[in-house]
């Protein structure tokens, strides 16, 4: 009964979405306020119905209703409640439901809180949201219905894929989806602007919080996915340039570019046409990301289904939305007015440089990800494009971007003083030089370029600190005055500094792990030892430990320093899931500062010995710590929104803001 209710609610949501797709636009043509305001109520109604449908599916999972095919295939009553709920999005149908749920939630938020939006913009944007929602509702109802029943309800479900039964999966896909779908708002506003033929700085101010929020979720989602792959797949890599990872990286790159170009548009009214294009591209890449992963075009960790009708439907959605949006752009963009002027050396100029390199880096990832598919379709040759491709294209493009990054915030709007900025960054450059020299002095046998990587990371981090130091004039004026200035700085300035600092931290982690990480593989008998870095592990033996829906074969290892001090124990395991006759490797991690020891077990051999893989991962946690700092930066910047949107502020606050920028 509950599943049927959910199914029915989803159909009603589709009906509302269809109404919302057409009526508000008709309303804007004749400036009919009633028709235009319909968008708001239908958006709220749509959300209510989709929430009902999603809730119904959640109830089916929570109560282990195996008469529902989707639940039967992906859940098991022995799983803890948390995994029963997260398995909702551990499969194609359920993940599409989550997608639509978030989409309509955002639509409802725009409808509910967008009271000071211009009526036409709001009506058009909500209508575009409804096009997307309708397409997805239809997709779910016709090809991926999660509410289908089985005639003879089985007694037990088939279980969720074991590698997905992990806390990392509980939050990582929803975060990615929040990011992907967040860009849909920017997309809808861009299309609305094109439909109306006008766009201004207020548009950017409206869109920026959404882009920022989406970017934050995506940042965290990508970092979460990366950490999940790191500890769950059992071989210690943090990024594989796997098509699925690339699919989430591309919208992130485009979204980062959009975030920066929207600043220019908001503050200076420039780069309008470009910003609109980026908004379209960011969401297009999100769509491609969602679908390439789900459609099974890419053979990968996340490809849930290979189904031709789905594939054709997906291709249709991609062509209509991306192709349609770009065609509309080509037709209408020339109508948009040009923005303000700026010299090449200026804050705007720096942001343009940022955009150039980010989009080009995005292009290389796009080509590397899709070229194998295109080639196979054309010539039938099967190839794989591996990490070297991305390292040799993405790396060189990110290098100038990172070098230029600290300069950006130090340049003035309109016309900047490059020499002045360079002088201010001198300390950062000196720190970097010291780090490079120290790196060469201390390093024995690592890659030649590694100290330069560390130097660059230090330059980026120091640059972010100098930016704040310059704004607060700390060390140049009395401390109390500097602190007052720091408190008065706009949150977005802190946000910039945090986010840029975070990039430096991540870079540092990547360089250290790649250059100085070490790996040992050995076959150990009980009592055997293995050394890595300055740690020595002793294998004490194997024992068995039952779990709720699996059984662990645990290896117990004692960890000591090479000098003999006892540090602790590590217990990696091989986890067998009877429901799917599948085994996973559960690596053991031991955190030392920001570095980690990483131990995973291979197949046990009959004679009680076991194959182990042991890694020392120096500074590895900095990779994800950096992403967290970026997220905090985004949050700070987002909290600044209150200062910029909404009720007019007293003149004093306005003046202080301007002075600080």
């Amino acid at each position: 009964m509950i599943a049927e209710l959910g199914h029915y609610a989803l159909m009603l949501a589709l009906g509302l979405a269809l109404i919302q797709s057409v009526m508000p636009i008709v309303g804007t043509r004749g400036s009919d306020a009633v028709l235009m305001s319909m968008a708001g109520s239908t958006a709220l109604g749509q959300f209510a119905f989709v929430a009902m449908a999603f809730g119904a599916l959640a109830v089916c999972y929570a109560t282990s209703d195996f008469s529902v095919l989707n639940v039967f295939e992906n859940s098991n009553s022995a799983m803890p409640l948390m995994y029963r709920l997260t398995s909702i999005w551990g499969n194609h149908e359920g993940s599409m439901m989550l997608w639509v749920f978030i989409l309509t939630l955002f639509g409802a938020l725009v409808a509910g809180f967008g009271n000071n939006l211009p009526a036409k913009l709001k009506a058009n944007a909500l209508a575009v949201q409804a096009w997307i929602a309708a397409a997805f509702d239809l997709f779910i109802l016709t090809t991926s219905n999660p509410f289908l029943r089985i005639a003879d309800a089985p007694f037990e479900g088939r279980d969720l894929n074991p590698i997905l039964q992990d806390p990392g999966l509980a939050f990582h896909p929803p975060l990615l989806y929040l990011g992907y779908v967040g860009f849909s708002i920017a997309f809808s506003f861009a299309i609305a602007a094109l439909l109306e033929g006008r766009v201004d700085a207020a548009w950017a101010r409206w869109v920026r919080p959404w882009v920022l929020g989406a970017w934050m979720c995506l940042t965290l989602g990508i970092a979460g996915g990366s950490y999940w792959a790191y500890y769950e797949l059992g071989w210690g890599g943090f990024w594989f340039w796997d098509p699925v990872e690339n699919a989430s990286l591309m919208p992130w790159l485009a979204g980062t570019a959009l975030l920066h170009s929207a600043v220019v548009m908001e503050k200076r009214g420039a780069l309008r046409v470009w910003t609109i294009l980026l908004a379209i591209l960011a969401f297009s890449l999100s769509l491609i990301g969602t679908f390439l992963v789900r459609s099974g075009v890419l053979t990968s960790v996340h490809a849930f289904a290979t189904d031709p009708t789905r594939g054709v439907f997906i291709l249709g959605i991609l062509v209509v939305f991306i192709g349609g949006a770009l065609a509309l752009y080509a037709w209408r963009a020339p109508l948009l007015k040009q923005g303000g002027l700026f010299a090449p050396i200026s804050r705007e100029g720096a942001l343009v440089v940022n955009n150039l390199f980010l989009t080009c880096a995005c292009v290389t990832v796009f080509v590397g990800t899709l070229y194998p598919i295109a080639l196979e379709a054309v010539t039938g040759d099967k190839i794989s494009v591996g990490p070297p491709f991305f390292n040799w294209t993405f790396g060189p493009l990110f290098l100038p971007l990172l070098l230029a990054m600290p300069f950006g915030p130090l340049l003035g709007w309109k016309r900047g003083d490059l020499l002045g900025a360079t002088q201010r960054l001198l300390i950062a450059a000196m720190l970097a030089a010291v780090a490079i020299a120290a790196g060469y002095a201390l390093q024995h046998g690592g890659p030649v370029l590694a100290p330069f990587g560390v130097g660059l990371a230090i330059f980026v981090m120091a640059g972010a600190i100098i930016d704040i130091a310059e704004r607060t004039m700390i060390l140049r004026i009395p401390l109390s005055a500097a602190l007052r200035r720091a408190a008065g700085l706009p949150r977005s300035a802190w946000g910039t500094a945090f986010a840029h600092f975070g990039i430096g931290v991540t870079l540092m982690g990547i360089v250290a792990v790649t250059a100085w990480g070490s790996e040992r593989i050995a076959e150990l008998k009980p009592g055997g030892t293995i050394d890595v870095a300055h740690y020595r592990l002793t294998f004490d033996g194997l024992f068995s430990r039952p779990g709720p829906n699996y059984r662990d074969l645990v290896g117990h290892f004692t960890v000591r320093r090479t000098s003999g001090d006892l540090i602790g124990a590590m217990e990696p395991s091989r986890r067998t899931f009877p429901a799917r006759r599948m085994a996973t490797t559960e690596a053991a991690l031991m955190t030392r500062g920001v570095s980690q020891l990483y131990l995973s077990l291979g197949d046990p051999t009959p004679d009680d010995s076991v194959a182990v893989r042991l890694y020392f991962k120096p500074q590895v946690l900095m990779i994800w710590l950096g992403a967290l700092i970026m997220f905090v930066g985004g949050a700070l910047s987002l909290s600044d929104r209150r200062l910029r949107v909404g009720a007019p502020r007293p003149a004093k606050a306005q003046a202080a803001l301007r002075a600080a920028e």
Partner: protein
Amino acid sequence: MTRKQRRLVLIGGGLGVLAIAVGLMLNAFRESIVFFNSPSDVADKHIAAGTRIRLGGLVKSGSLVRGDNLKIRFGVTDGNREITVAYQGVLPDLFREGQGVVAEGVLDGAGVFNADTILAKHDESYMPKEVADVLKKSGHWKDDYAQRAAMPVAGAGK
């Protein structure tokens, strides 16, 4: 500078960076593309020793030999031909005899494939897409392989 000149600077810079990106990609493509081959392809195309390829097929039943120091040898077959693969390291979780596998590495002079990376499926009924195509081509495809197709590929690098 006039508006026109500024725009020229912008467009010039943009095209410049794009040109660099294209150059980088073409260069990287030359060096980092790895072709996928079945054991039959290796024989038919006379792939030279030392060329880096991906080899895909089924792990031949009964062919797995474990040596010292995690050295492993097994046969990869597409039903028609077989190639011996040598690997050192820990195999992925669900590496099994009779199941699909993709190995990356180079052929040595003696016709043994020295793999440095083994990719295997992550589900008891999953078949890598490339391997499925190989089996279909060689006529050894069985329908039940496809039933729960397309679950993860996880790998083991060295």
